[in-house]
């Protein structure tokens, strides 16, 4: 069995990224579009942590900058999910729909 290298993790992250992009472009339901954005952010996190493992040590200690970056991205995903879902609730109160192609109030 071939040993697991960094490229294996990058391929998994690329697959998750493409699945997230497909979900954002294709689905009608806004909540599922937001969940696909979370898939994209997870793919980026996996990339960062895989690269942080690849780069070994710096000054004799483990180089953990990729992992710290991943933690900040998780924080940012939480903030963005909260605000995005708040916008969805505020809109749902007006129009009673969660489909992206029915949210077209700008073309009155």
């Amino acid at each position, binding site marked *: 069995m071939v040993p697991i*290298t960094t490229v294996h993790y990058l391929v998994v992250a690329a697959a*998750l990224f493409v699945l997230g992009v497909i979900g954002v*472009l294709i689905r*009608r339901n806004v909540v599922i579009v937001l969940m696909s954005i979370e898939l994209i952010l997870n793919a980026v996190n996996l990339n960062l942590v895989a690269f942080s493992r690849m780069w070994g040590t710096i000054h004799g200690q483990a180089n953990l900058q990729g992992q710290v970056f991943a933690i900040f991205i998780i924080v940012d*995903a939480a903030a963005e999910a909260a605000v995005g879902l*708040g916008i969805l*609730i505020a809109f749902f109160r007006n129009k009673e729909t969660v489909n992206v192609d029915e949210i077209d109030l700008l073309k009155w």
Partner: protein
Amino acid sequence: MNPGMNAALNSGMAPVATPWFFYALAGLAVLSGVLVITLRNAVHAALALIVTLLSVASLYLMLYAPFVAGVQIVVYAGGIMVLFLFVIMLVNIERSSKERRFNRIWPAGLAAACALLALFVSAFVKGKALFMDRGMPLPESSNTQQIATMLYGEAGRMGQYTFAFEIASLLLLVAILGAVIMTKKKI
């Protein structure tokens, strides 16, 4: 303890990361990712996303990042996905589980995503030599301590990312304010 395992430990290879764990977890992550974007019911899609998040957290454990795995499980799967489920129940999209799943221009979206996938595949095939695997087994026991040193600093100095940490907490405060104001009936 067979001599083959001793040789693997001495040569610096990761002793616990067998390929079967990786393929099982990676397959589970990709499969539940497909389920997230294709399931009709939004609650089922949220549960599939929880499975994806947990398998990605297990992949972090394989990459010698136990603190990020813990943060992923507690914050992402335990906080953000619960928020998603609350909003799904609030919005009450029972009716939308009987409507069309995909919008009208889905072939264009699928073609764009396939172009992106072709770009990734060509990058991995051509640039395989760029990602040399150093293969150093990082110590797991001091991982949290080292991340804390980078975030908070030590011995009276500020850490490398202390300023970014404070900005991140300010970002969370702004996001909480925004979410509360957006969902009030009368501002």
